Structures are given as structure tokens and as C-alpha cells.
């Protein structure tokens, strides 16, 4: 029943180095595509608004998803609630190109994530550390994005999660075979995947960053810390000039090693989204704590 993993991770491979932007309607999707986004992510409300307005955040209404698919030629992703396999089935039937089983929406299942091997559509899942990443890959995720803190406009959590992942991966490569079984137990991750990471020094699927990217410099920082690309959520459409910022983030993501380019992209962008001090968030307000 398992669909070709190669097709799933293959699409993730094609998205590398590109920027995936959150959009709630066709108009935003067109702005994103025109600015050079490699894909758009359809969701009901952007994370900053979910935070502000509260209530249950669900999959985007299907007519909105279809409207977005209609107007862009780039891949369309859409978010489903953690464990809500029916939302995922609906999104797959609409023909979306990637499903994000996302902690940004209100979880539908506090115990189990979706069995992603049962789907032809590839999934991306959030992770804060290596154990969480490998559990999701063990369930069939074709891409991992470090969670960061969505809708915060604050890059600190994304940095924390990227660094945790990188340090843990590096550590695995130094361990002997007999140590890996214990490591698998400690991480709560499948041994075969732990062994793969130890042998290859990277995740077996592409690894992007998300949660808190608000400026071109934030995007470039994520890439320096090992992210193969970035998701930008509230940052773009909560800024003063979304079109200009979208352009700038795309360029800074590609040319992250060229500080002259990143610096030029950072000019004249107006005010970035205000952002939150994540230390002032209560535990239940931290979206990254959702899922395990």
C-alpha cells in the first residue's frame, strides 16, 4: 500500500532553496507566486491571526483551497490538523500537492499523528528536535520543517530547533553501533532511522525551517543553520509592504551566503511585523508544544 516514497521526497527535493509562503486567498497566492515563491501554503487564517482571535483553527475551507489552486502554477500545500486524517483525505482529493500536518492548527488528536504512508500526497510535519523529526519520518513524512514559534515574528524558537536538530545529528555520527540502540530508546525514534542518520549525517528527507521568519536576514540565518529552505507565514502579509518583503525573502534565501545581496534585499522594506517575546507566552499559547 505504501506509495513511492521517491515521488514524495522527490517533490520536496524540487522545493529546496525556495520559499513557501502562507496564503489565505487567491489574491495573496498570486502575490506570492509573482514574488518567486516556490509553493504556497493554504490555510484558514495566518498564524498571527489565529493567535489574536483564538478559537479552533481548522483546515482551510475547500473553496478557498480550490480558488488558490486555480490561480497559481506553482505547487499548492495546505494544512490539516494533527491527527485529522479526514481533513488530509479531503485535501488529497482536491489535488493539493503537499499536506502540512501542522501544530499551527488546533490538534484533532492528542495521541496519534496521521499514518502518512496511507496517502499518495506527500506530507510535511513540524519537529523541535531529532526524535520528533524521526518519529514523523517513521510515520511517512516526506519533509520536516523545524517548528519555530508560528505567528510570533520572532526567530528565536526556529533557531533553537534548527540548532537542536543539527547538534543531535552531529552527535549521532560520532556514536558506535552498540550506542545507537540506546540512542533510539532515548530519542524515542525508530532504530533503522537512527542508524541511517548516524551513517549519513543528515535527515533522510529534506529539512526546511518555519515559525518566526519576519525578515530576509531571518531567512538567511535559517539557511546558515542548515535549513534547506524556509516557510514564511505571518511575516509576509503582516508586514507593511508584503509584495516587496516576499521578493526580498526569496532572494535572501537563495543568496544567503552572499551578504551583499542579503543586505541589499533588506533595504527599504518598511516595518516588519511587530512580533512577540516568546518568553511571555503561556505554555498553552506555544504552538510548538503541540504534537510530540
Amino acid at each position: 500500500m505504501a506509495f513511492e516514497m521517491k515521488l514524495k521526497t522527490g517533490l520536496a527535493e524540487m522545493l529546496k532553496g525556495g520559499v513557501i509562503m502562507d496564503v489565505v486567498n487567491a489574491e495573496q497566492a498570486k502575490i506570492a507566486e509573482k514574488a518567486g515563491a516556490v509553493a504556497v501554503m493554504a490555510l484558514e487564517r495566518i498564524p498571527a491571526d489565529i493567535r489574536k482571535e483564538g478559537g479552533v483553527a481548522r483546515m482551510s475551507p475547500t473553496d478557498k483551497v480550490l480558488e488558490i489552486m486555480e490561480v497559481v502554477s506553482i505547487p499548492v500545500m495546505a494544512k490539516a490538523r494533527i491527527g485529522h486524517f479526514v481533513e488530509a483525505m479531503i485535501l488529497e482529493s482536491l489535488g493539493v500537492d503537499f499536506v502540512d500536518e501542522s501544530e499551527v492548527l488546533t490538534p484533532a488528536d492528542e495521541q496519534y499523528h496521521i499514518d502518512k504512508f496511507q496517502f499518495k500526497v506527500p506530507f510535511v510535519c513540524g519537529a523541535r528536535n531529532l526524535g520528533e523529526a524521526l518519529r514523523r519520518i517513521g510515520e511517512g513524512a516526506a519533509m520536516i520543517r523545524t517548528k519555530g514559534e508560528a505567528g510570533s515574528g520572532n526567530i528565536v524558537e526556529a533557531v533553537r530547533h534548527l540548532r537542536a536538530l543539527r547538534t543531535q545529528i552531529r552527535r549521532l555520527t560520532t556514536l558506535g553501533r552498540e550506542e545507537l540502540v540506546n540512542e533510539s530508546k532515548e530519542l524515542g525514534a525508530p532504530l533503522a532511522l537512527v542508524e541511517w542518520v548516524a551513517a549519513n549525517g543528515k535527515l533522510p528527507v529534506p529539512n526546511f525551517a518555519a515559525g518566526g521568519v519576519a525578515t530576509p536576514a531571518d531567512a538567511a540565518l535559517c539557511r546558515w543553520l542548515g535549513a534547506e529552505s524556509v516557510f514564511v507565514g505571518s511575516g509576509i502579509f503582516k508586514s507593511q509592504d508584503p509584495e516587496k518583503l516576499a521578493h526580498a525573502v526569496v532572494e535572501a534565501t537563495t543568496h544567503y551566503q552572499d551578504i551583499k545581496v542579503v543586505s541589499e534585499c533588506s533595504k527599504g522594506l518598511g516595518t516588519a511585523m511587530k512580533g512577540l517575546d516568546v518568553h511571555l507566552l503561556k505554555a498553552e499559547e506555544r504552538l510548538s508544544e503541540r504534537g510530540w
Partner: protein
Amino acid sequence: MLIGILALQGAVDPHGEKLKNLGIESRLVKHPKDLTGLAGMILPGGESSTMLHLLKLRGLWDDLKLFVSEKPCWGLCAGAILLANEVTSPNQDSLKAMDIGIVRNAYGRQNESFVSPLKPSSDWMDLESIEGVFIRAPKIKRTGSQVKTLFTFEGEPVMVQEGNKLASTFHPELSESNKLHQYFVKLCQESL
């Protein structure tokens, strides 16, 4: 010999690994200066609209256009779209290095992505069959008189050659075999 890989976005790394397996050095190309001294160039898969956008921002467009008009190059999926003379669905600009017409996402969306064995069109290569990984793939709808078809799928060309240029709508960099990369390396060596 040094082969360049256009590295604005997309499936860049798997080509570097393939070339490394064949003992060939590669260089990532992001700026015009990166083109100096390259024997050939791979334009990888990814999103053609994103690459097009980035190509035009920092002066790489004109230099790359000149490079691909002269030197060996291989465009895959989005890369093939960049090399084609005409692009539709939607219409977009291209480097116009090969006399082919190409239609974007012609099989459909990700749900319609597939893997299929492919047989060489004639005896141009001593090869039984190779694996074709098609991801939101385009279709080559028109081929000029100088264009040779190397592989077909359901009667339509999926890999073509025109002089020292190759275009394929599938992704050999995601399969085990090094054969097609070897073929491109040979084209580059012959053009030195």
C-alpha cells in the same frame, strides 16, 4: 573538467552527488562569474517560475543565455522548461536554447506524479531500460527537425537531444543509475 549546476533553487545536490560518483567536479552557479571555465551545465528540476524570477534579478540571465547557446547543457523538468524555445501553460519566457515546445505540469498535479520504466527510443544507448521519475512533469509537445528523441513514454518524447544539449522531463538524479549523467559527461568531454 568542471560541470556547473544552476543552484538558484531546486534539486541541486543529487546532481552533485551523481557527478562525484563519476569522478567529475561540479560547481554551484548563482552568479555570472560562476560560469567561467565550465565545460557544461546542468539546469536542475525545481520550479521554473521561481528560477526565471531569480535569473533575471542579478544579471545571470544574459550570461547564462550565451553560455547555453554554445556549451553543452542538460535541462531537467524545470531546467528543460528554461531551455525550450516555447513554454505554455502558462506562457513564460525562456533561454531559447533548444528547438522544442514544452507544456508545464502537463500530466497534472502531484497526485498524477509517477514512476515508470523507460526504454531507449532506438539503439543510441546500450541499455535495457531505465527508471523514469516524473514529478509534476512537463510534456515536450513539439520537437524541431534537428532534435533527436532519446526516450519516450506512451509515444511522447520525454528525453531529447539537439547537438550538445539534452532536455528530459523526468529525474534520473533521483534514481540509482548513473548512466544518463555519464552520457552528459561524455557530451561535455567531446565539446572540450
